[in-house]
């Protein structure tokens, strides 16, 4: 069963994401911000990281950069959820090593669509 790390500082978003994903047969590990996610990534590997951008302590792109430094996360798909749609944001995402982005708000079906594309 693919394991997904869902990172969001908002409990309701976390809950919705993990509810959607577990319902679709994924296993979900939740993290409350980038730092928490990074610590969880030290002890476990994931098939996909789905992270919010704007979070306290460590933001989504910061998390992406740090994860990419580790060999076991070199090729892991990392999707950044963002409400910012500017090209700057996208370029920053690309530079940080993110796999792609998903604009908030999104609906659950779209999330599953996107995830299916990147999880083998």
């Amino acid at each position, binding site marked *: 069963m693919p394991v997904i790390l869902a990172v969001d500082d908002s409990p*309701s978003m976390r809950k919705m994401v993990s509810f959607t994903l*577990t*319902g*679709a047969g994924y296993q979900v590990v939740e993290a409350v911000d980038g730092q928490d996610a990074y610590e969880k990534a030290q002890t476990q590997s994931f098939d996909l990281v789905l992270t919010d951008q704007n979070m306290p302590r460590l933001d989504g792109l910061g998390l992406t950069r740090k994860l990419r430094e580790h060999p076991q996360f070199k090729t892991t798909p990392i999707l950044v959820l963002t*409400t910012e*749609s500017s090209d700057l944001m996208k*370029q920053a995402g690309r530079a940080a090593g*993110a796999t*792609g982005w998903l604009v908030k708000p999104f609906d659950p079906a*779209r999330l599953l669509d996107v995830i299916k594309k990147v999880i083998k």
Partner: protein
Amino acid sequence: MADAHQESSGSGDSFDLTQFYQIFFEEAGENLDLMEQMLLNLNLETADDEELNGIFRCAHSVKGGAATFGFSDVAELTHQMESLLDRLRRHELQPNALMVDVLLESADASRGLLARHQAGETGEPPSSADLVRRISELASGATPAPTLAASAPAPAPAAPAVAPVAAVAAQPTEPVVKGARQLEIRMGPLERPEQADAVKELFRDIAGLGEIAVLPSDRADTRVFKVGTSSSNEDLLDLFAFHVSREHISIRDLGDETGVGAAPQPGHAAMAFADDPPPGTPIAPAPGYGFFEGAPGAPDAVKVTAEVAEPKGSAKVVAKPNAAQQSQPEAATIRVAISKVDQLINLVGELVITQAMLAQNSRSLDPAVSQQLLTGLADLDRNTRDLQESVMSIRMIPMSIVFSRFPRMLRDLASKLGKKVEFVTQGEATELDKGLVEKITDPLTHLVRNSCDHGIEMPEDRLKAGKPETGTITLSAAHQGGSIVIEVRDDGRGLSREKILGKARERGLDVSDQMSDGEVWQLIFAPGFSTAEVVTDVSGRGVGMDVVKRNIAALNGTVEIDSSEGYGMRVSVRLPLTLAIMDGMSVGVGEEVYILPLSSVVESFQVKDESVNTVGQGSRLVKVRDEYMPVIELEKVFQVPRFDFEKSSDIMVVVEAEGSRVALLVDELLGQQQVVVKNLETNYRKVPNVSGATILGDGKVALILDTSALVRRSRH
């Protein structure tokens, strides 16, 4: 791609988001509260990044959730707040009081909108258009003349009044740049941003190209323009390439944009982000998502198309959360229905009674024979007590819950009255029973309001009196023994003895100049008593202190006043920590057992006949250390039948309530114990002089005496 999009929004409609509404409402409420608190604590001159980021995140989270769950009005308003806060945290704008006011108002308005959604109200929502306009004016950097009244500031006249927010820019009333297409063009990041300024001249020089206006930029190295033109993007890029290289230009069509937050339907095409990236940018456009070509983990183009064609069956959502998701980091707190906690407390109460019963029965056992049983009972005693304490602590919540509402209230009030007030809180972490917290909020609000309205003087009066211009109101809470003491202190004008006495005479109250200060201050608790010279719309209508006192007395609490004219006053409210359990002293009268609240017991002693004097109408007084106090014979009050005529009560227990003392005459003192208070009114009916009942260890019911009522009784 297009197919995938349609399909996903189709199945999205069937996915029920309502199950997450409640958690979103709570979370949004917490975020708005936090934001308000941080805004109030914000020092405008020295605001640091952490503070501004924190405030920004609150608005950001609410907006994200509101947009996801389809509350477009909330999303729109919080989007505007976020835009302003974003510019603040990037230090493109300096925070000012006007911004804080507007943000606070917007937080209130958001709460209102959320409450409507939560209640499921339909119909026309209250318009937040005015707030949206004011925020975007501030966000655009326009500085309307600072008016004291929070009324809408005059719209800024200049063209830059167009905010960098699509929703506002698209309003027809704005000075729209003419042309067939409305575009937002960003140039940057540039080493020399002045390069971009030359683009403006193109529009001046080339007839028919259209019009251009400068928009405020969120970055120093980036220029943002609003352009109205009928030329194609490609043509524009070719032209601009004279000055700025293509890679640094992005063009966004404003024509059908409604702003990210305003998207009414998550997953709808209008949702966001339908950017039109300039040619040459390696980022692929996508309906709300995208992958970076060649990025680790990204699917290749062929694969994407292939998988889109796949049947949608696997995306079906089963409403059964996986048990494996146990790693919830926020599990530090859980939300539980208060009724469950109350039931738990009730059950523990029964357990305490059963335990006490066993303990009492075991006393007749021979320790040598039943040693094991007795050890077990001793353990049970200790464990029951611990359990009871833990269970009671579930209901305890910190006073900060109450205190946090005052900074905002005082800020509004002080500015309304034209006063300068600093608010200080102490002991916010002090815990109190939730039931009490709810009931103490109104009286405290009244006291704090009084302090600001009547206590603190106008700034010029304070200066004249040699005091600092800014008054201080301190709200503190602390545990003292089994009670909590909450104090409202101010350094204002204090109470005037003369005015109070004058007012009392006017109202025909029985007063004299010889009364002690303490007695004079107690007069303001008389119904309809107010010494405020001006009745403001804030307080001073004469309904007040008596209600405060009555509410607090209903919680078994007391109110004391301390005042010094010209220097301020202090109101101390003393409350028991909880209403459900009480430390009591059990006393025997005849065959009956009564419980006295230990908090009101002062002392007890064996009475000598000569120290009791009978005065008129059979009233009796006892002299205790040069002080005379009324004697109340419980035997007579409750008409206790007495079979042993030889015996008479000879123990006196002095109790204090409402600032007076009385001596209760009882047969014997039985001991001190914690009792579980049972409401008599709900189980039977109101009984005079009795505040409740409890079940004793032997299963008998004992009445808990209402000492306040007994004291009042002695006055008549």
